[in-house]
């Protein structure tokens, strides 16, 4: 449990910046008149969690315990499913499965790709 307490006390600048943005689905969906209760990426997030569990990289119970801890600490003010996504990224960073610099660089590259016309 102390491992999860440490997890909850850690902050990642990249994720903190996202946390403070007002881009959650709860905010955006009504702005665009979208009635789907979930963002289109939610299913993909679930699949990522399942795949990490199957491979043993991040077992279900450990991920959920970390999610619970982070839901009451670092991301207490973030709604679902954004909170689950932030918690997953946070946990993967904490375990060294990915690095913050790689994640930051990849996010820039992906945004560039998505915005290309």
């Amino acid at each position, binding site marked *: 449990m102390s491992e999860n307490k440490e997890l909850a006390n850690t902050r990642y600048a990249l994720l903190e*910046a*996202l946390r403070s*943005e007002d*881009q*959650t*689905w709860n905010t*955006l*969906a009504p*702005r*665009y*008149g*979208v*009635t*789907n209760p979930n*963002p*289109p*990426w939610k*299913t*993909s*997030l*679930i*699949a*990522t969690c*399942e*795949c*990490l*569990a*199957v*491979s043993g*990289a991040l*077992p*279900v*119970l450990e991920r*959920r*315990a970390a999610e*619970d801890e982070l*839901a*009451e600490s670092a991301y207490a003010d973030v709604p*679902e499913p*954004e909170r689950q*996504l*932030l918690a*997953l*990224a946070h946990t*993967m960073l904490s375990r060294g*499965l*990915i690095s913050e610099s*790689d*994640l930051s660089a*990849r*996010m820039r590259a*992906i*945004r560039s790709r*998505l*915005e290309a016309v």
Partner: protein
Amino acid sequence: MSHAHTPGNGGAEHPAAPTVDEITDFEVLEIAVRELAIEHGLFTAEDHRRFTEWAESIGPAAGSRLVAKAWVDPAFKERVLKDAVKACKEIGIDWAEPTGFGTPSDYMNLRVLEDTPTLHHVIVCTLCSCYPRPLLGMSPEWYRTTNYRRRLVRWPRQVLAEFGLVLPPEVEIRVEDSNQKCRFMVLPVRPAGTENWTEEQLAEIVTRDCMIGVALPRPGRTADVHPMHRARRPVGSSRD
């Protein structure tokens, strides 16, 4: 915000847009995490595609069919109560899919809990959010909250009342705590007024919440409400 500045709307009445016209950092983050995980060999793109398709395909309709069939076919109900995973194959649900050994979050041990007029079951997962997904689809957000998980086992009657389900004192409430080894689903009592209904008609009133145990099926009720559970303490506690 004025109508003139509503994105994609322009002030006119239009049907709901399929998605938002904006690339959010959350969307970008989801892709980035997935791509890096694949590149680092944590799983393959093919694995991810398979699980995504599976997650998109499941919902509570399978559970509704199972309950409706059990109501009209006593022999099927016996098979459900004896070996639910095996009986699920009769309605087209194979718990071994998509991985062949059960998904990592849905181990292949399902018990269906039969309600009676004096016994009511309700399910929870106090540890995390275990849920019979092959039959009920993805769990609702409230099922995952610590508030529901912590309080249901301590004050079941009160929590059920918050869902609008007020049970008389003579009805015993049994809370089943799902775990890493076992999943549960509730088989509610067939309500009065459904005599001579077809399985399809019956399935329509067996909603997700009825199979979790926070609602009862009844004629005319075909959708679940989505209650807000903000309270951290029960009504009547010293904090209220």
